[in-house]
């Protein structure tokens, strides 16, 4: 039994070669693709747990590939890029990536991020509130789905975990660091921009008016808070 199926998408053969070797040695099943287009074809036919996606590729490029993959699958996506400004990170996360790693990176750092991407918050056993009803939405904690007016809204695993964690701790301001470590893992804590992007995406998906959120509230200087609907 492998630790997971990983698709490496990079136009640079040496990077594909070294990642294939190192990740396979860690017990992952590794596949690779040379372009975003090839990656989309591979993802259409097979299931992967993590996609390592280079941002700068010929053809459609990493960002467009990320959006396409995200539109069709809830696989975890980690962007690989040479730039490390906040703007670049936000762009990558906005395109639907779960995480971001700057080239050149070491194998331990990459492994940590892959583990974080594979992490899923455990569903509380025997919890009473398995389905949370918001105004027009139903969040099914066990099935990890959100329904809006009978239609299913797709949440990425990290979006779902973030929402889940906030719902599990209602009316409590949760600091950035705590949220990051709960959802991504113990190696995280500084990446406030991750939360900003993911909370914005969640608001677009579950808030009736994303510009004036009612459930997912910002606690200035602290973090975020879930306000359940008054019943």
């Amino acid at each position: 039994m492998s630790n997971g199926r990983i698709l490496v998408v990079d136009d640079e053969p040496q990077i594909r070669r070294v990642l294939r070797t190192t990740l396979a040695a860690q017990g992952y099943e590794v596949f690779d693709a040379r372009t975003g287009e090839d990656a989309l074809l591979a993802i259409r036919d097979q299931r992967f747990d993590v996609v390592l996606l280079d941002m700068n590729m010929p053809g459609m490029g990493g960002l467009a590939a990320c959006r396409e993959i995200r539109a069709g699958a809830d696989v975890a996506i980690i962007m690989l890029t040479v730039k490390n400004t906040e703007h670049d990170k936000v762009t990558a996360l906005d395109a639907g990536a779960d995480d971001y790693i700057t080239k050149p990176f070491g194998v331990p750092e990459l492994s940590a991020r892959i583990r974080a991407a594979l992490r899923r918050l455990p569903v509380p056993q025997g919890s009473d509130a398995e389905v949370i009803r918001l105004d027009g939405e139903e969040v099914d904690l066990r099935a990890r789905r959100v329904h809006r007016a009978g239609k299913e809204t797709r949440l990425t695993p990290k979006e779902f975990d973030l929402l889940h964690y906030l719902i599990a701790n209602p009316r409590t301001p949760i600091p950035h660091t705590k949220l990051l470590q709960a959802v991504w893992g113990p190696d995280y804590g500084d990446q406030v921009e991750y939360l900003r992007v993911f909370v914005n995406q969640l608001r677009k998906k579950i808030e009736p008016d994303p510009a004036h959120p009612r459930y997912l509230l910002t606690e200035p200087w602290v973090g975020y808070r879930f306000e359940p609907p008054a019943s």
Partner: protein
Amino acid sequence: MSDLPWKPSYLRGALFGVGGVAGVTALFTQVLAVNASTVGFLLLTVVLATATTAGFRVSALVSVAAMLCFNFFFLPPVGRFTIADPENWVALFTFLLTALVASHLSDRARKQTIEAKRRQLETEQLYALSRAILLTESSRPIGTQAAQNIAQIFSSRAVIILDSKSGQYFQSGEQATTGWESRLDEVVRLGNHQRYTAEDLDVWPISLGGKPIGALGAMGIAVSDGAVQSMLNLVAIALERVRTEEAANRAEAARQSEEFKSTLLDAIAHEFKTPLTSIKAAATGLRTLDPARTGDHQELAAIIEEETDRLSQLVTEAVKMAEIDAGKVRLQREPVSAEMLLMGTVDTFEGRGAERFRVSTTTEANLLVDRELMTLALRQVLDNALKYSEPDSVIACKAVETGEEVQLRVEDEGPGVPERDRQRIFEKFFRRASTRDQVPGTGLGLHIAREITRMHGGDLWVESATSQGAAFCFRVPLRARGPK
């Protein structure tokens, strides 16, 4: 249009009129016998025809001649200038009056037609000129092209244009225009139209928005004042357009060169980092995947990894510096407290000596800075302090408010920086001879740190720490100010 007394057209008109009157008289006295009214009407026709072609003066003359013939040959008693019947007096004067009034009216219509034709011609000429000026090619000076266009369109023998701002004279052709330059200069000085009869030269000042920008001289040109003004305006616009275009071209060239530079930088960064990524992943892979192998193996892989990091940092810093030099970096200021800034920077050294820093601040003030860039600047100095002091020594990071600015001080207990190197350590690629071989570095970090601080309107320098060692001081203004 001046009325010279004996223009050829007048003579022709007079001959035609008098001939016409004589012809009609001869016809009706010698060949046909008709009544006086018929003759009168035919004579009137001759007068009108004269008026339309030759003007009022000639037709007035012809009117009198016709009246005399009418009287002499057709009104009784025929053959004499006397008139028997008073009724015929009335007829005679009615004839004269009608001839004069009709002459006058048709002459006026003729003049208006001529004027309209002239205006139309001038409008066409101005249109042709504006078209020519709009369509000028950039290969030849636009002044020369304008001068040639004016000479051709307004049938002037030679045209010369002075562009005062550049001090250039543009001529329509090879014609001898020696000495004209001084005429143009004179008109620019005087500010109004001058005519130099000796050369048949008219010179007008060219102005735009009330400001004189040059002069135009034309030889043998016949255009109305209104048309001249329009022509001058066109030339003014043409000259000004050249200047605007040149400025735009320069700006565009500068922009393209910047764009090229930054594209090149991105490409270089990408080209270097790609193989570095493979090397680093391979080296760290060696270390982590086979921990059973120790000693030499681990040591060698560690060296590859460290040197990869150094190369990678060099590329990052070189690109960052080039971006700052090229003015490509824009500050995104946000309020952040000095403590947050220092703590945040120290946090980035987690696992690499963060525990050696002691942060102490005595100010609550918020700095209005680009957090990312300022952290980058502080990182360089903190990294420097770590590298140049004893491995277990403490490094103090302080923030003190002094009036309108905040000083961030990073004090280490290392050997300090000798007086003579205190300026030079901030220069690009400068590395001190004594430490060059012992401490890894790129020689760019402090330069970047100072450039970033200066972009914020502050400064960075080094002095002696209170105990020993070096103290790097950032001066950051509390209110946002541009770079000096």
